[in-house]
């Protein structure tokens, strides 16, 4: 049958010449490429001692933001979880009790908020879906591990610190999300 794409190759069974049968030219050709690379600039860096610069709006590990008064923004509305194409986000909502007003901004909050980092594809749809300015991707690289269980990031890894110096700056990322430049 005639090929539709004209990209198929015709296989030939022609005999190898003597030089080809020696394989030496091919071996030296390969070694030449190998040695050439030894004198080139390395493409890798030894992370974490050395770190590469990221783009201003790099999409790395998530953060759950607090507001200026240190209260968690997240109200466990579930829009990030329904927007997530990888279904990485799960949460359990709870009602804020009396005396917790300084911890949570609204009467409902996320008791548990888990992101499965093995499922997450860092697409940023969660931050776009968030109506409460709560979740952002940051320029931090999500930490690695040898065990799969450790990749389910819970609130203690996701929520930023309450002190001003432990806050995570997401102003560039926030601007990018609002302007639609993902």
């Amino acid at each position, binding site marked *: 049958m005639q090929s539709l794409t004209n990209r198929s190759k015709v296989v030939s069974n022609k005999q190898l010449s003597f030089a080809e049968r020696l394989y030496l030219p091919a071996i030296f050709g390969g070694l030449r490429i190998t040695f050439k690379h030894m004198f080139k600039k390395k493409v890798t860096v030894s992370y974490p001692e050395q770190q590469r610069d990221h783009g201003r709006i790099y999409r790395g590990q998530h953060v759950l933001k607090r507001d200026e008064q240190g209260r968690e923004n997240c109200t466990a509305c579930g829009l990030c979880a329904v927007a997530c194409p990888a279904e990485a986000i799960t949460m359990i909502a709870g009602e804020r009790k009396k005396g917790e007003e300084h911890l949570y901004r609204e009467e409902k909050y996320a008791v548990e908020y888990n992101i499965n980092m093995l499922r997450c594809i860092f697409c940023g749809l969660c931050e776009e879906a968030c*109506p409460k300015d709560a979740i952002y991707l940051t320029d931090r690289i999500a930490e690695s591990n040898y065990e799969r269980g450790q990749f389910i990031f819970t609130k203690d890894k996701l929520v930023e610190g309450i002190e001003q110096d432990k806050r995570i700056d997401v102003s560039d990322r926030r601007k990018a999300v609002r302007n639609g430049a993902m």
Partner: protein
Amino acid sequence: MPKVTIDDITIEVPAGTTILEAARQIGVNVPPAMCYYSKLKGSGGKCRVCLVKVTKGSDRDPRPMPKLVASCRTAVMDGMEVRNVTSPEVIEARRGVVEFLLVNHPLDCPICDQAGECHLQDLSYDHGLSKSRYEFERRTFERIDIGDKIQLHMNRCILCYRCTQVAEQLTPERVHGVLYRGEVSEISTFIEQAVDNEMSGNMIDVCPVGALTDKTFRFKSRVWFTKPMYAHRDCPTCSGKVTLWYQGAEVLRVTSRKDKWGESEGFICNTCRFDKKQTIDWTIEGPADVDRHSVISQNHYELPYELPVNQKKLSN
């Protein structure tokens, strides 16, 4: 029988039918309704979102009606011509009404348990503006306790009066109602923690917004993470036909079945609604009909039926 033309579609309906009911019989471009409820007598005429333009009164008196009319309370006349979505005036007026409904609404959808099945949410999405022009302080209320099963959020109420009609028509004694008048009116009970009638839970189903919600479902999940299934049981007090809202194998909530217009198909009693939350209490009929554009059908990748080809393979 009178013939009525709505948006250039003519239909013949029995005398005394309202324009809204005639439009529902046609089935496309139906005016929205926030307060009208076909199963409750005397409902309608309050929210004004169902406004339509009558361009020809009837065959006998072809003059147009001078103002937009509420289609839920206006009966059709023979030869009447109505414009709904084809009239820019109606769209404009409805936009204004939606803005008025949202004037005091807290817009706390991320917290509200009704989000995802809220008629006001759909309505503002369809007609409203994305931003509020209202600059004054919204009405807020101290939260009052009206019982251990029903949660009242007066801030979200749009005063449609459906819940008072449920109490009046389904229960022997109404113990809650609308207090005060005009801008300061509010839903309240005469005595705190008083709503405990066996049919009182239907207030939750008829409420078009999140003002009355199920306390046993409060903050448990979001409607789009639950999977609705039709089920029934032999109930001595009600029809026993319900929708079970599953999350995994757990029944989080029981509601009545909703028809195409978001109205209850049959009212259910509080025993069915609040006390029977085990699968063994029910005979499961199958997945509930959910509009595929609804957020409730999001992320449910499982098919509601078995593929015919699979069945064929099994039989061979």
